[in-house]
C-alpha cells in the first residue's frame, strides 16, 4: 500500500519540478535566493577574516595597554586576564619619572617635527625639479634616486659614521679651527643629511612627490607663467598647495618614522634625552638598578607602561589625520 501511494507521489514531485522549471517567475526567485544566500555566506566569511586579522594586529596593543595597569598581585594571579583586579597607576608614575617624560617627549617631538619640515621642503623641491624640468642626465639622476630607495642605508653606515666623526667641508672647517669637527653625539648629522635630501627614507619621499607632480596638469603652471609668476613663486604658492595630499602623506610618514627611528640615533650616538624611542630601551635596566626590582616579569610591566607613553603621540596624530592620510597615500604617487 505504501508502494502504491509512493509511486504517484514521486510522479507528482517530478511533475512539480517540471512545472517549476518551466515557471520563469519561480526560476528568477530561486536565482535571487541563491545569490542572496551566497552573498550572505561570503559576507560572514569576509567578516570573519577581517575581524581575525584586526585581532592579530590589535591584540598585542590591547595586551600592552591592559598589562600596564597590572599590580604585582595581578601579574601572578592566573585568573586575571586583560582586566586587572587591582588596577594601579604606579607603573606610569615610575615610567614617567625615569623617562623624564615631558622633557624627553618635548625634545623628541621637536626633533622629529623640524626634520619633517625639512624633509617636506627639500623632497618636494627635488621631486618638482624631476617632474617638471628637462635637463641633461635627468634619467640617470632619477635612477640614482631609485638606487637610494633600493640600497638600504645600512650598507653605508660605516662611511657615514666616519664622515661625521671627522666632519669637514673641503678642508674649510679644519682651516678655520685647526681640526675637523666631531659631529657625533648630537642631532646635527641628521639635520645635515636631511637638508641635503639624504635623510631617513628621503628617496621614497622624492619618488612620491615626483609621481604626484607629474600627475598634476601642466596648464596650472602655464597659466601662472602667463600671469607673470616666477618659477619659485609658482612652486611655493601654486604647486605646493596643490600637492597637499602628498604633503600630508610625506609629513606623517617622515614625522612618525623619524620619531620611531633608532637606527640613525644609534649610529650617530644621539643622546637618549633627545630621542625617546631610544631611551625606552634602557628603562627596564634603570628601574631595576635604582628601585631594586629584580623580577623580570614585573619589570616588563614598567616597559609596557613606557611603551604606552611613547605610543600616545603617534596614535593621536594618526587618529586626527587618519582620513587624509589614507586618502593621501592612495591618491599620491606611492603607486608608480
Amino acid at each position, binding site marked *: 500500500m505504501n508502494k502504491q501511494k509512493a509511486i504517484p507521489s514521486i510522479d507528482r514531485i517530478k511533475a512539480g519540478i517540471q512545472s517549476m522549471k518551466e515557471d520563469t517567475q519561480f526560476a528568477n526567485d530561486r536565482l535571487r535566493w541563491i545569490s542572496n544566500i551566497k552573498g550572505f555566506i561570503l559576507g560572514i566569511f569576509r567578516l570573519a577574516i577581517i575581524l581575525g*586579522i584586526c585581532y592579530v594586529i590589535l591584540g598585542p596593543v590591547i595586551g600592552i595597554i591592559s598589562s600596564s595597569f597590572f599590580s604585582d598581585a595581578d601579574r601572578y594571579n592566573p585568573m586575571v586576564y586583560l582586566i586587572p583586579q587591582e588596577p594601579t597607576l604606579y607603573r606610569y608614575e615610575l615610567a614617567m619619572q625615569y623617562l623624564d617624560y615631558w622633557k624627553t617627549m618635548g625634545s623628541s617631538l621637536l626633533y622629529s617635527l623640524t626634520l619633517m619640515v625639512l624633509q617636506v621642503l627639500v623632497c618636494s623641491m627635488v621631486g618638482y*625639479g624631476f617632474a617638471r624640468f628637462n635637463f641633461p642626465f635627468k634619467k640617470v639622476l632619477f635612477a640614482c634616486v631609485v638606487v637610494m*630607495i633600493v640600497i638600504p642605508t645600512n650598507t653605508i653606515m660605516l662611511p657615514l659614521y666616519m664622515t661625521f666623526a671627522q666632519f669637514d667641508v673641503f678642508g674649510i672647517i679644519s682651516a678655520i679651527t685647526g681640526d675637523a669637527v666631531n659631529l657625533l653625539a648630537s642631532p646635527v648629522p641628521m639635520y645635515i643629511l636631511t*637638508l641635503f635630501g*639624504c635623510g631617513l627614507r628621503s628617496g621614497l619621499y622624492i619618488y612620491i612627490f615626483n609621481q604626484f607632480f607629474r600627475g598634476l596638469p601642466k596648464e596650472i603652471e602655464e597659466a601662472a607663467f602667463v600671469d607673470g609668476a616666477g618659477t619659485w613663486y609658482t612652486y611655493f604658492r601654486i604647486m605646493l598647495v596643490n600637492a597637499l595630499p602628498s604633503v600630508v602623506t610625506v609629513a606623517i610618514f617622515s614625522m612618525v618614522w623619524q620619531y620611531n627611528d633608532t637606527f640613525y640615533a644609534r649610529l650617530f650616538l644621539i643622546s637618549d634625552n633627545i630621542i625617546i*624611542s631610544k631611551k625606552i630601551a634602557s628603562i627596564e635596566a634603570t628601574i631595576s638598578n635604582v628601585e631594586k626590582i629584580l623580577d623580570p616579569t614585573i619589570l616588563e610591566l614598567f616597559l609596557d607602561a613606557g*611603551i604606552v607613553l*611613547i605610543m600616545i603621540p603617534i596614535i593621536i596624530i594618526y587618529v586626527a589625520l587618519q582620513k587624509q592620510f*589614507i586618502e593621501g597615500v592612495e591618491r599620491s604617487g606611492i603607486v608608480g
Partner: protein
Amino acid sequence: MEAARTKKRKRRSLSQRRAMKGFLFIAPWLIGFVWFYARSLFMTVQFSFSNLTVRPGGGYDLDFVWLDNFIYAFRAHASYKQVLTTSLGNMLVDVPLITFFSLFMAMLLNRKFRGRTLVRAIFFLPVILNSEAIVDAMSLARTMMSGGISSSSAELAASASSGMSIEYYIQMFSSLGLPDVIIEYISGAVSRISDIINASGVQIIIFIAALQSIPGSMYEVAKIEGATAYETFWKVTFPMVMPHIITNVVYTVVDSFTKSEVIELAYETAFTNMNYGLSSVFSLVSTLITCLILVIVCGLIQKRTFYYN
C-alpha cells in the same frame, strides 16, 4: 651692466634656462647624493678590500689586503654563511606570501562595507608603530596571549596538545598525498601570520590604490560578456594590478633585507668587534645578492606584465 645682463640672458634659450632652474631645484639632493651617498658607497667597497685601523687622534689608515676579508667571511667566520642563507631563505619565502596576502586583503577591503575606514586605519597601524622598542614589546605581548596566534607554532613544535591538534591535521594532509614541502610552507606561513600581517601594511594600500585605478567599464564589459567572478579576476583584475606587483616586490625585498639578521651582524661586527673591513664585506655581499634577486625577480615579472597605457 644692465645691458650686459640682458644680453647674456637673451643668449640662453628658454629650454636652457628651464634646465638651469631644474638643476637648481634638485641641487640640494644632488650635492647630498654625491657627498654622502655615492662617496659612502665607494668607501664601503674600499673598506671591504682593506684592513682598517683607527688612528688614536682620529682618522684611519687603510691597508689594502685584496680579497682577504671576503675569504675570511666565507671560509672562517663562524656564523656569517648561516645567517646569510637563513636571511635570504626567509626573504624568498616571505615575498610571495606577503605579495599575495596583501593582494587578497586589498580586494577584500576595496569593497564598500560599513566601518571600512576604521578597518583600513587598523590595517595601517603596524606601519605607524614600527619602532624597534614597540615591535619587541608587541611580540612579547603576543606570546603572552595564551591561545593566541603565535602559540600555534609552539604547538607545532610540541606536536601534542589538548583539544585541537595541528599535528593531526598535518598528518591528515600528508596522508592525502600532499607533498611535505607544501604542508610545511603553509603551516609555517600560518604560524607566522602576525609577522606577515605586520609586514604588509604599505603593500595593501598600494594594491587598494591600484584596484581603484582600474576603470569600472572593464568590469561592466566582463559582466555583460558573462564572465564569472573567477574569470574576471584572472582576466581583468590581475593583469591590471600586475605593474604594481613589481613595486610591491621591490618594497618587500628591501624592507625584509633592512630588518634581516645580516644587517644586525654587520652592525655588531663594526661597532662591537671593531672589525670594519669585515663588516663592510657583510653589508656589501648581502646588498649585492639582494640587488641580484631584485633584478631577476623583476625581469621575470616584467616579461609577463601587461601595461595598460
